[in-house]
């Protein structure tokens, strides 16, 4: 009974969130055409000659997410293979909880680390790269590190679930451990691994604190990793802290961007579920 109530409550809350996003968004789209919003290249909601082209925000989100994934996927899958296929069981018992603790570090800590250490010290002082106070690179790299534990832990679960009989079958044919990991265990665990990566993507797209602190605050189209940029989440965080009047166009803008973010995340999950269904292997 309590369980059923909890389930219904969860659904009700989700629906509530969607409705809360849609109503102000509808008001927004009464004033700004969907076309201008989705395909416009200038984002200046607070200017006198306001413009609501969301492309600049999307480019920044794209860059931070891509950099995060380029960091997190190899590191995460590498750790997962090490943990599941190479580590002594006792070592695994120690390492996995540590990994999971890492996943719980508050994102504001990561954000400050990205801004002060990665951007300020590493990229500028040590590497002398031509970059300002913020960059999508610093934010993306640290975001990548942040999602490594998620990707690693879930992928490791998927690989550990592959029955040992498959590893034995492979070894009995003269495969070494690396071949067995990459050619048998990895494909067998593919659906779980994809799920892990998708969760990583969702977290990267939705991550707010790190990009708000370290990626920058100007909504311009991002064309390189060393540029600053304002992501969708970065805009929402900034604007929400401002004093937009309820019902004003700036206020409604927040929800339109929020709805777009929600849709993108939903789409990613949807595509991945289809993918996983297609490649699922029962064993």
């Amino acid at each position, binding site marked *: 009974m309590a369980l059923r109530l909890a389930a219904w409550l969860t659904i009700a809350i989700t629906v509530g969130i969607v409705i809360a996003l849609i109503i102000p968004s509808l008001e927004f789209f009464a004033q700004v055409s969907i076309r201008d919003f989705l395909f416009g290249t200038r984002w200046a909601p607070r200017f006198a000659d306001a413009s609501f082209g969301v492309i600049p925000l999307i480019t920044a989100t794209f860059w931070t997410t891509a950099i995060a994934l380029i960091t997190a996927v190899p590191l995460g899958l590498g750790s997962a293979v090490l943990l599941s296929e190479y580590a*002594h*069981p006792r070592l695994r018992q120690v390492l996995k909880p540590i990994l999971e603790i890492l996943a719980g570090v508050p994102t504001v800590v990561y954000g400050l680390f990205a801004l002060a250490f990665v951007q300020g010290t590493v990229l500028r002082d040590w590497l002398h790269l031509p970059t300002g106070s913020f960059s999508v690179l610093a934010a993306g790299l640290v975001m990548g590190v942040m999602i490594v534990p998620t990707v690693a832990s879930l992928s490791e679960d998927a690989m550990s679930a592959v*029955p040992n*009989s*498959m*590893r*034995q*079958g*492979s*070894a*009995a*044919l*003269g*495969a*070494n451990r690396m*071949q067995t990991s990459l*050619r*048998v265990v990895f*494909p*067998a665990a593919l659906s779980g691994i994809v799920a892990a990566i998708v969760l990583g993507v969702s977290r990267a797209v939705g991550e707010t604190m790190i990009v708000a602190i370290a990626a920058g605050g100007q909504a311009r189209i991002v064309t390189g990793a060393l540029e600053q940029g304002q992501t969708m989440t970065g805009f929402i965080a900034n604007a929400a802290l401002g004093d937009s009047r309820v019902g004003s166009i700036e206020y409604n803008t927040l929800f339109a961007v929020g709805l777009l973010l929600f849709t993108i995340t939903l789409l990613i999950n949807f595509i991945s579920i289809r993918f996983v269904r297609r490649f699922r*292997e*029962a*064993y």
Partner: protein
Amino acid sequence: MSAQPSPEVTTHQEVTPPHEPQEVHFEPAHPTRDDQLPDTPDAVMACKNVDVRYGDFRAVTGVNLIFGYNEITALIGPSGCGKSTLLRSLNRMNDLILGARVTGEVTLHGQDIYARGIDPIEVRRRIGMVFQKPNPFPKSIYDNVAYGPRVIGMKPSNMDDLVEEALTQAALWTEVKDKLKQSAFGLSGGQQQRLCIARTIAVRPEVILMDEPCSALDPIATGRIEDLMEELRQVYAIVIVTHNMQQAARVADRTAFFTALAAEGTGDRTGMLVEYDKTTKIFENPSDKRTEDYISGRFG
């Protein structure tokens, strides 16, 4: 089993000069090559005083065995007497088990496979293994067979031919030739097991180890695998663990009977070889009382 007598038996009868006194032979229900079997096998592999331990626990001890070329050797005995353990020590699969340790000598063509400098990967390529439960990879039928040749870097002039040959040898080709690209999981249990045999054959091993390969199969599928073993014997040395005595009697040229005895001091039950001989001898006239008890007990 094939209904016709095997060609060897026919040949033998033909070359027997008619004037020699005819010996009266016990006729086994199934043709065996007992008459042609040499007293000691033409050894491909041998165990000399082999012990296998898991940590401090000694699972089998003091095993001396010879596995002959073109012969099927069955390992039988009550559950837990170390048959699987011994089998895994023949291709160094025990290396993958934490704490497992083999002492004594296991030789392939006289070379100790546990000697320094011997690559266990190469050992496993030359000594293939088929497992109790069919364990195809989550790949297509074709890729299951091509997997072994690919990972060991075989460069066949034509992989398709190699796959076809292995599947044909495993008596599976006609059933799967139109669905090579389909997942191996779509096959029946018996077909999956023959696929696993095809996969093993594809890397051209010299010895095939089988650990209760039919225990998960129905009688018809079992019969097909037994026929197949009969065929494979022409080319390979086969060692089969089976808990099914009729199966050992049907397919094996020689049989090794194991049992587990409580070691002095510890209460551990350690497996040891009781008797090893031609299958007909083991089943009709065992020299050890324990063998006789086990065999008659099973037959009721």
